[in-house]
């Protein structure tokens, strides 16, 4: 039921006038943020967390 409602809502939204295409070049600078250290709006992670993030994932 919920999925149906979402689908209907999505169809309605997609059919609204004014829909436009966002070029990939624009999407690249407005939909993604930079990681810490190169992002002036994002704190560096604590050292322990940074080290954990840097470790390869064990499988």
């Amino acid at each position, binding site marked *: 039921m919920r999925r149906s409602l979402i689908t209907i809502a999505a169809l309605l*939204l*997609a059919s*609204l*006038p*004014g*829909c*436009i*295409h*966002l*070029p*990939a*070049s*624009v*999407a*690249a*600078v*407005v*939909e*993604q*943020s*930079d990681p*810490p250290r*190169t*992002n*002036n*709006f*994002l*704190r*560096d992670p604590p050292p322990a967390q940074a080290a954990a993030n840097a470790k390869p994932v064990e499988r």
Partner: protein
Amino acid sequence: MPSLLNGRRLRLHLPAAVLLAASALLGGCATTTLGPGTFTTWQIEGQPDESTLLFRGIPVRTGQIVASEQGSPQSIFLSLLVADNYRFVHTGIIAIEDGIPVVYEANGQIQASFGGGPPTRHIGGGLRRVTLESFLNKQRFIAIYDPPPGADRERIGRFAHDSLAAGLPFDSYFNREDPTKVYCSEFTALALAAGGVSPRQVSPVNPNASVAVILDWLEITTPDIIPAGAIIADATRVGLFSRLHTPAQIEAYFDVKAELHRRFTPEQKLGNVLRFSMLRGLKFQPEVQGFMQAVNTAAASWDKLPPVEVDQRVRALAVEQLGPFEPARLANATDAGQR
């Protein structure tokens, strides 16, 4: 534009902020009785004289300038398009007509369209007139200013009235060389020029690389914009108003805005400050939102602090919430990393 062929279909997105900024200014707030009883900040600094009308205690007169700021993602987006930081993003002209204070403002509105292309091609609207009461109710931070000394107030008001009668359309391309279409601060500057004062101070567009990408897509080629804040540079404040925020919270918000601008260096992506959702449209990044909320909460008890200390505390919260920021050190680190 060939790049559009690779585009993705979105309902709302950042460039739509150019449209949404206007709709944000329209707001959705219910009208309430105006006055110190319903506004957290109702600060009147101007003195009445024979040419003023006392509107709920505010000495208003034809030719005054109204400036406003919403503090929304859309207004921060518009602010970041310009190289210099200014407090306000929107201005208009006050006139007294039939004993009622009204505001003339240039206002862009999205037009229904099934065509492609950037949103700037689908923005309509133009000059409109709203009551000052409605304007005060719908904006988040509002200030009223007397124009610089020597201004012919009646001519300013007449220019606004005649421009509305002429159906002056909105200029979504921010081209100040073409006075047949106007954006908000351009209209205000033209009105003031008609009254003999020319605050046509301009600010270059932001040299930020991601801003260049956005402007290119929006087909905005102007090298500079008349910023709303520059309009009031030589004006005298008559009053400051906000329904929800104390004077210290207003001051702190402007310091937040300055801090975001300071950190938005040329290599920073707009996506570091703002984010998108297919359904929700333009929002602040969570860290930026958290910083803004932390400042607003803390500033509720800063009313006795001088502005300099408010600024220092905002910067301290920025370090806490967003991390330290030292432009020179970062630039050196980047250079070193590239070698």
